[in-house]
């Protein structure tokens, strides 16, 4: 299944890579990367890709395909079982990311927003949360305060500054999670299912914010199940297949118009309806009623 799907999209991968062959600045370089959970359970296998400055990358795939694992690998929280992962030209390893100048710089440049905000929000108040990152990186106090206030203002959550995280709503928690990473002023933003649990209006606000945040030097990589936001936000889509490898790497408009591929990759599903004596089948995409 994985091999067949890879064949379907390989031409597009080549086209995509050849288009950007001049002045490429790779933020991440991944070669033959594999990751296994304890018990030899595969989470990712044979992943090869480069991610460049200025890219807005969507990671899509069925549940359990390895999207969250890839984000944690890119953030240097876990390390490949095989292959190589380079960030800013340096091979990421436990030793390199644990301490020292590169570790400090890497943590300042790369921020990950976890899928579950309760994991992300471990400090007693929202203010402690947004200042946690800059404080650990030894940034001067005045700068920390200005960054914290700026991050709260960017996400419109200044009024929540003194609140404890357990008294926040789901949407507020998501915004504060993002603010807690933005206060690091990262160059690379990794978001794990950023729109899960958000109402359509908050989803729209988040997409607008991320589009405004991005520029030619920043990198946004987000995992999602929602093809609507892929279309609106991403400039590149990576599809992880059921064999935990990359089965497609393409532009959103190309990939989302390929219904056969989407069906085979379990990204959409086919509905069957009965109209009197006739059984009618059609593809089905979840639409959350949010259009620009």
């Amino acid at each position, binding site marked *: 299944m994985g091999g067949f799907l890879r064949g379907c999209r390989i031409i597009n991968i080549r086209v995509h890579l050849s288009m950007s062959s001049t002045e490429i600045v790779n933020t991440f370089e991944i070669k033959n990367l594999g990751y296994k959970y304890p018990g030899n359970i595969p989470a990712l296998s044979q992943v090869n890709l480069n991610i460049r400055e200025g890219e807005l990358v969507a990671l899509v795939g069925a549940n359990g395909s390895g999207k969250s694992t890839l984000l*944690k690998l890119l*953030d240097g*929280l876990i390390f490949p079982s095989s292959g190589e992962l380079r960030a800013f030209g340096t091979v990421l390893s436990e030793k390199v990311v*644990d*301490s020292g100048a590169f*570790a*400090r710089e890497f*943590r*300042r440049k790369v*921020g*990950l927003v*976890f899928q*579950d905000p*309760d*994991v*992300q*929000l*471990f*400090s*007693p*108040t929202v*203010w*402690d949360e947004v*200042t*946690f*990152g800059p*404080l*650990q*990186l*030894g940034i001067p*106090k005045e700068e*920390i*305060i200005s960054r914290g206030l700026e991050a709260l203002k960017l996400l419109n959550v200044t009024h929540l500054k*003194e609140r*404890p*995280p*357990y*008294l926040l709503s789901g949407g507020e928690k998501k915004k504060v999670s993002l603010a*807690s*990473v933005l206060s*690091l002023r990262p160059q690379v933003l990794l978001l794990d299912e950023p729109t899960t649990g958000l109402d359509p209006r908050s989803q729209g606000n988040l997409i607008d914010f991320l589009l405004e945040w991005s520029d030619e030097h920043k990198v946004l990589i987000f995992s999602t199940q929602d093809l609507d936001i892929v279309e609106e936000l991403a400039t590149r889509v990576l599809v992880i297949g059921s064999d935990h490898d990359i089965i497609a790497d393409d532009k959103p408009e190309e990939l989302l118009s390929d219904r056969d591929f989407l069906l085979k990759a379990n990204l959409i599903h086919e509905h069957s309806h009965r109209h009197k004596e006739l059984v009618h089948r059609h593809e089905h995409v979840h639409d959350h009623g949010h259009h620009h």
Partner: protein
Amino acid sequence: MKGKSFLAGNISSFTQALESMVVTEDLCRAPGLLQGLDPRVKVITLVLFIILVGLAQSLPILILIFIFAFVCVILSKIPHVHFLKRLFIFIPLFTAVIAIPALFITPGVPLLSLAGRTIITEQGARTAGFLIMRVVDSLSLGLLLVLTTPWTKLLAALRWLRLPSLIVAVLGMTYRYIFLLLHTTNAMFLARRSRIIGGFRGGENRRWLGRALVTAMMKSQYLSEEVYLAMLSRGYQGEVYILSDLTMRRRDYLWAAFSVVAALLILGCTYL
């Protein structure tokens, strides 16, 4: 019916615990006497009063300290019922375990005799009274601190008092995640309640409770691993740094001066 009351009772307890945490958070932010003080001054002065409670040798002084604590309750706009409920929830247990035996085993001048035998002595009654008043006073002062200081400010004060930053961070996270685990456990009980008709026998309930506890423990372990990764992701390298924005104002100095004078008076009355 038994099963239903078991579930209903647990759900009610979890909900009460959650509500109590929210109420405490609101009280800490209310505009009152103690809420307006710097947490460092509050921690030092209230701990000083607790030490004085231990040193005091006179029952009237212990009663006076309780009256002082109750005046603080009023001036800090803490609902009396809420305060007294939280205070006296521990007293019966303490009285039964320590104070009541002291009534009967302390030798001295007879106070109550029955059939020619001394049941309670004056010294016994006095010892029991001291024990109870010391617990009431200490608990009142401790409650005043907790009910008028947001947990975050309390942690900042402890950090200022040179408590290791790792311990402060662990205390902060414990409080934060107790709330989350209460929510999770409450949801587990509600989910079970939604799927049963009638009830279960005691044995079945205990078996389910055991399984629920294991599930909650596994969830908390997963959560702790993920939280650690989230901390690493934002630069944590074994030492937690906390931003302190505590400032002393005129009223803090006034309260500190009042506390020192009161302490000297109590010590004077006790030892001079």
